[in-house]
């Protein structure tokens, strides 16, 4: 074993890699939250439920319609996104002028309902979704055996996250989005359909969660509470990164995964708490978050 100064580097790198994989999911989910928050100023508490929904739609599609993984990867985010659009259009829009806390509570209630319905149908124990044939097996790296599918997760999540970031920061569509955040009335006056943009953005943010759900299905078992467990961590990540920042959400998500991996090696007992500890420290030093503008 390669040990130096009492550190077993094989084990350490292994944990770091696992951390990066978890971080990929954090990044996808916090990115979705950040996009929705950026335009609607609401925190979507149902983001975790949408992630779970993505995994379940993939699982059910596979079981009852033989939908394979690659199709699911394309179709499921669209289905979940459409559900998100319905939620935004018929439930969130009516209270858009109320205190934003109400939409937080509304999405919290929705999350409870969706999770409850799936628990009622499928029980709370997990179900497995097969790894696609093309990604079975793994590579023997010098320090660990890396299953191909896990490597795929990292590559695809990073690609999706950064192309989203590029789209928002560098394209014309992104300009509209950001303008809508700054001054919706003015944008409306230019003849842009702002409510439509808002609805589509919500759908896109939610669709990202659905996408993460499909990605997660083969590695984590598909269960109704898979979303609620990860959501609170993602909330902490959003607080750490700073709520307004798209890039911040991505970097913090990946970074916190790595921090978690490090902790798992050096002091595993703290691995569940470390992200929240980082959050407390960030709050004390920079209350608006690492990448946030001062609110």
């Amino acid at each position, binding site marked *: 074993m390669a040990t130096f100064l009492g550190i077993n580097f094989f084990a350490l790198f292994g944990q770091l890699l696992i951390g990066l994989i978890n971080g990929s999911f954090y990044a996808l989910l916090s990115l979705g939250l950040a996009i929705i928050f950026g335009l609607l*100023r*609401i*925190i979507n508490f149902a983001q975790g439920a949408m992630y779970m929904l993505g995994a379940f739609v993939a699982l059910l599609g596979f079981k009852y319609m033989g939908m394979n993984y690659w199709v699911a990867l394309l179709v499921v985010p669209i289905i979940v996104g459409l559900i998100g659009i319905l939620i935004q259009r018929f*439930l969130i829009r*009516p*209270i858009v002028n*109320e*205190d*934003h*806390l*109400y*939409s*937080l*509570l*509304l999405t*919290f*209630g*929705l*999350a*409870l*309902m*969706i*999770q*409850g*319905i799936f*628990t*009622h149908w499928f029980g709370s124990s997990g179900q497995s979704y097969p790894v696609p044939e093309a990604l079975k097996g793994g590579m023997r790296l010098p320090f660990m055996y890396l299953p191909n599918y896990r490597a795929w997760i990292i590559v695809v999540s990073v690609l999706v996250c950064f192309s989203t970031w590029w789209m928002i920061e560098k394209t014309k569509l992104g300009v509209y989005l950001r303008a809508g955040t700054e001054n919706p009335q003015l944008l409306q006056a230019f003849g842009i359909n702002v409510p439509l943009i808002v609805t589509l953005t919500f759908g896109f943010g939610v669709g990202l969660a659905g996408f993460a759900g499909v990605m997660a299905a083969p590695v984590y078992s598909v269960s109704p509470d898979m979303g609620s467990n990860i959501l*609170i961590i993602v*909330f*902490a990540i*959003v*607080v750490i990164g700073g*709520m307004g920042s798209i890039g911040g959400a991505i970097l913090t998500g990946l970074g916190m995964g790595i921090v978690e991996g490090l902790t798992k090696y050096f002091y595993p*007992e703290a691995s*569940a*708490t470390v992200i*929240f*500890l980082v*959050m*407390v420290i960030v*709050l*004390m030093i920079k*209350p608006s978050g690492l990448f946030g503008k001062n*609110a």
Partner: protein
Amino acid sequence: MRSRLVILFLLGLALAAPLVIYPVFLAKVLCFALFACAFNLLLGFAGLLSFGHAVFLGTGGYVTGWLMINSGLTPEIAIIAGTIAGGLLGAVFGKLAVKREGIYFAMVTLALAQLVFFLYLQAPFTGGEDGLQGVPRGKVFGLIDLADNQTMYYFVLAIFLAGFWLIHRTVHSPFGQIMKAIRENESRATSLGYDVNQYKWIAFIISAAMSALAGSTKTLVFELASLTDVHWHMSGEVILMTLVGGVGTIIGPLVGAGVVVSMQNYLSGGELGNYLNIIMGAVFVICVLSFRSGIVGQFNKFRRNNF
């Protein structure tokens, strides 16, 4: 005078109720009612939505439970200790959280509570997933044995009334008036020279301590302290109770706690147990969409319009 009569009527009802209804159920309602009142102090009168209040409920419960098992103290001392512990934790969390507002405040409190949840999950003194089991109810002042459910209920009723009175006094004190002023217009309160964050912080501490009082009492009733009381679902439940009953009303949280606990009691154990979360979620959505002032709020409106 009319409201006094109402209160007396309710008090008579509360005294006679355990003759009819299973006292442990009633005691549970009162514990949650106190918890919801404490929460409402923050949401209804200071305009701060905490999404981590379960942590205070649970902390009170663990401290009281641990002391009852390990120290041989009498229950009233253990409850006071639990309340103080909750208040201290509230002081720390409050200091961190009141810097932020609105949604930020909600998320910061949620994440802080989750930090403590994981600490409790691993800390030896909480018993982890097993919880603290077999907490003795003990004898109040070393004299009154709480083993009997009815005696226990009256003890809980006394604690509830004390807590309720304290919250009521806080709301109607000059301090409470300033709180409301801050809720309505924070910058105005600041310009009048009030240290806004200081006021919010104190309200947070009182609310945390009263929540811990509720948790301490609940642990004695059920002879058990567990992670459920610290879980963020519990923080959601107390929001629901307050929302259903009526945010910012005095009686609302009490009504809300009664409704939600009865609903849970009725649904769990029966064939409908599976629907509990679905129904709770639906009630949430309905309340937010079209029933934002809650039962008591609606009732007050109705009374104002018709009498």
